């Protein structure tokens, strides 16, 4: 058995020195390496300033596109590979198109029983004379439901980006209000005649969505364009009388929720084979084709308000 050794003798053994070094309590360099005493650091202002200037100069040199070789090389490389990739894509697409069935001919896979049924039974099943409107709002209504929500999402993101909160709004409003209304007589005269015609034409397109070409989207866009023309001619004060953020919010809410509820009713009744009580009406009459007319009106309102909201957001960051 190893007898206990006195502390002083143990300190000289190799094991003690090794474990002391391992635990880091004794710094092996202390005293061995010749070190002159450290000077106390006094930061003089102009040296710091000089460092700062040099630092910025280096930064500008590094990030200066003209002199930075690596950035220039990267740009050339990027342009070259992009052009080659796009030429390759053109060649690939042209080769695929050459193998596709000839367009405009009759015997092609696309003209199968799906298209035939839309045309033959479209009138009696959806009641819409315009088969495309019938297909969008009745056969494949789920796409168009998603579609109006794409527009709604885009409005939300534009609201997030461009809507100024209270403080900035007054300052921005001042800058935009200074220019209006420019009261140039030509625009106002033209607008007084043109805006009513545009809005009536837009309403006509929406109401006849299921009878002739057009429908919710195009009618709404036409009405939106008319509102934008009115805003440009007569300035924000006039339009804010009837179109503020509250009207926008509630119009969008009512039409989108009507759209959602009407479509979920028809999906639910369809999926569970229940008879839906919506009448098809006589084809050709305005009040025909079941839900398509009210849906067109709802989509038209949403699109018109959205387009006016985009313009007002871009112009003034608010309503």
């Amino acid at each position: 058995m190893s007898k206990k050794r006195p502390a002083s003798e143990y300190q000289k053994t190799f094991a003690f020195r090794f474990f002391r070094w391992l635990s880091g309590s004794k710094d092996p360099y202390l005293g061995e390496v010749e070190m002159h005493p450290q000077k106390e650091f006094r930061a003089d202002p102009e040296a710091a300033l000089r460092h700062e200037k040099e630092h910025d100069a280096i930064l500008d040199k590094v990030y200066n596109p003209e002199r930075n070789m690596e950035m220039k090389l990267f740009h050339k490389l990027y342009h070259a590979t992009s052009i080659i990739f796009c030429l390759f894509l053109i060649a690939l697409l042209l080769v695929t198109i050459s193998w596709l069935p000839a367009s405009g001919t009759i015997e092609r896979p696309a003209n199968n029983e799906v298209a035939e049924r839309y045309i033959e039974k479209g009138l009696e099943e959806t009641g819409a004379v315009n088969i495309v409107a019938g297909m969008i709002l009745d056969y494949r209504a789920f796409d168009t439901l998603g579609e109006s929500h794409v527009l709604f999402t885009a409005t939300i993101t534009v609201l997030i980006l461009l809507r100024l909160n209270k403080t900035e709004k007054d300052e921005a409003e001042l800058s935009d209000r200074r220019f209006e209304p420019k009261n140039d007589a030509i625009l106002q005269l033209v607008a007084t005649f043109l805006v009513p015609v545009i809005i009536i034409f837009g309403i006509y397109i929406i109401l006849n969505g299921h009878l002739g070409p057009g429908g919710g989207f195009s009618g709404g866009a036409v009405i939106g364009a008319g509102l934008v023309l009115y805003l440009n001619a007569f300035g924000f004060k006039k339009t804010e009388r009837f179109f503020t953020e509250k009207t926008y919010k509630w119009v969008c809410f009512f039409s989108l929720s009507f759209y959602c509820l009407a479509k979920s009713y028809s999906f639910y009744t369809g999926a569970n084979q229940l008879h839906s009580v919506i009448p098809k009406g006589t084809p050709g009459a305005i009040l025909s084709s079941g839900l398509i007319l009210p849906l067109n009106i709802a989509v038209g309102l949403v699109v018109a308000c959205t387009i006016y909201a985009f313009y007002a957001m871009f112009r003034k960051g608010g309503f």
Partner: protein
Amino acid sequence: MTAFQIILMGLLIICAVSVSFSKNLLNAILIYMSFSLVMSMLWICLESPDLAITEAAVGAGITSVLFFVTLKKIHAIEGTEPSKKEEPKDE
């Protein structure tokens, strides 16, 4: 009918190429407006009037108006003085 379509498609390609090489932003947007007008004419030749109305109202109308408002906001059009407004530095 196909001759007319070929002319329209030629116009489309000319507009698309000239947009990418035009220096002035305003010209680019005017050429883009003509591009979408030619496109809505092409829809009519392809027997789909729904698309023609929508493309005309939305492509030439709304998109171009939004482009012009953006240019005005970005002071790219001469004569509108750029107001220097410094936002606080972010982290």
